């Protein structure tokens, strides 16, 4: 299983692997919003938590269709399905690899992007906390969408439509953590709900994804 993780990470950082795609997209969103909204610090400060989370979510969505599609095209998915690793573990590892290459860079770069959006200084630790707690759910839920659409050519549109509703709870509670943190309010409840969503997704969704892949391989 570690071999699979190492392979996926290695492919991601080699030429054409798509590493940094999410980060670049996040940067574009966050840089363009102030131009669109205008130089109104108060307004930017108020919408910063929502924009940061929205940017992270869309950046995550951007690279989802690669999670299984490439392995399906070159036949690796058939071979992995007949390999000694359970398909549930394959799915979980691939979601983890997606998080490491997409979610983790976003978490690390978020404070810098918060600066561009005039986020309140006391909101920074909560921004990192919320993204750390919430982005794994984005990768796991997204891999479920990718598993459902794996056999389809150009399944990206369907994938986005399937996954977006599943992302809404993470977006609501994630942005709430940052907003409350920036205002100096108590963040315990939304942070716990956010962590609960992530833990439940990590525990349950790989089984659904593996089932979806089995159906799609037929």
């Amino acid at each position: 299983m570690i071999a699979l993780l190492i392979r996926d990470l290695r492919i991601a950082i080699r030429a054409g692997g798509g590493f940094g795609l999410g980060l670049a997209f996040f940067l574009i969103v966050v840089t363009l919003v102030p131009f669109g909204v205008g130089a109104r610090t108060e307004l930017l400060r108020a919408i910063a938590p929502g924009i940061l989370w929205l940017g992270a979510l869309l950046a995550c969505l951007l690279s989802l269709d690669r999670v299984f599609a490439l392995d399906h095209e070159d036949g690796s998915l058939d071979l992995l399905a007949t390999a000694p690793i359970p398909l549930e573990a394959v799915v979980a590892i691939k979601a983890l690899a997606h998080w490491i290459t997409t979610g983790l860079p976003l978490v690390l770069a978020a404070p810098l992007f918060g600066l561009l959006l005039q986020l309140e200084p006391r909101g920074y630790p909560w921004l990192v906390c919320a993204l750390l707690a919430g982005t794994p759910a984005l990768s796991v839920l997204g891999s479920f969408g990718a598993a459902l659409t794996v056999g389809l050519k150009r399944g990206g549109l369907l994938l986005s439509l399937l996954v977006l509703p599943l992302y809404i709870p993470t977006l609501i509670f994630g942005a709430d953590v940052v907003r409350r943190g920036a205002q100096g309010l108590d963040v315990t409840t939304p942070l716990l709900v956010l962590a609960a969503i992530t833990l439940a997704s990590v525990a349950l969704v790989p089984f659904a994804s593996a089932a979806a892949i089995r159906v799609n391989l037929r």
Partner: protein
Amino acid sequence: MSLLHIHDLCVARGGMAILQNLCVTLDRGQAIVLRGPNGIGKTTLLRTIAGLQPGHGGTIKLPAEGVAYAGHADGLKPSLSVLENLQFWASVYGGRSIEAALDQMNLADLQHRTAQTLSAGQKRRLGLARLMVTGRALWVMDEPTVSLDTRSVALFAQIVRQHLAAGGAAVMATHIDLGLPEAHVLDLTDLRARARGGFTPGDPLAGDYF
């Protein structure tokens, strides 16, 4: 001891039965070559044996560990080297040594090249070398000799023979002669499932068989 025992299997593609009454028993040291016209269901049968899709009835008994499957695509990652590709599959299957497989499929000189720079035949040789590092007794291969030259076909026949001698077994679909006279040939034409009404919709050859 039999490695593969298929009894009265019915194979379906897209919900429609295409092969029926299939009975096969394969002992250690034996190989079966599947023959039949395009679309008869060779790939579907091999995928059913590999467990990638369910049968429509009947039973398949396999070794508990499962099979080593090689499909039309080789499952290679273009940005990884030959060595990394093979090493990955070796680790997945429990970390066997890959030296012998590289040598026997004549890949030793190519081991540091990335898979995207290989020719179709070289890719296929790498795909077949993967079978050798799985350590599984039953090989299920779909058109293993596509894009191989005569010399590589001979190499392939040699590793299959070696696998059989070591107590393995193989099921393969192929259109060419492999130089494996000991392999049983199973022609699937007679096992074609008869659609109700004695006619397979959309199949212009149907008249020849019914």
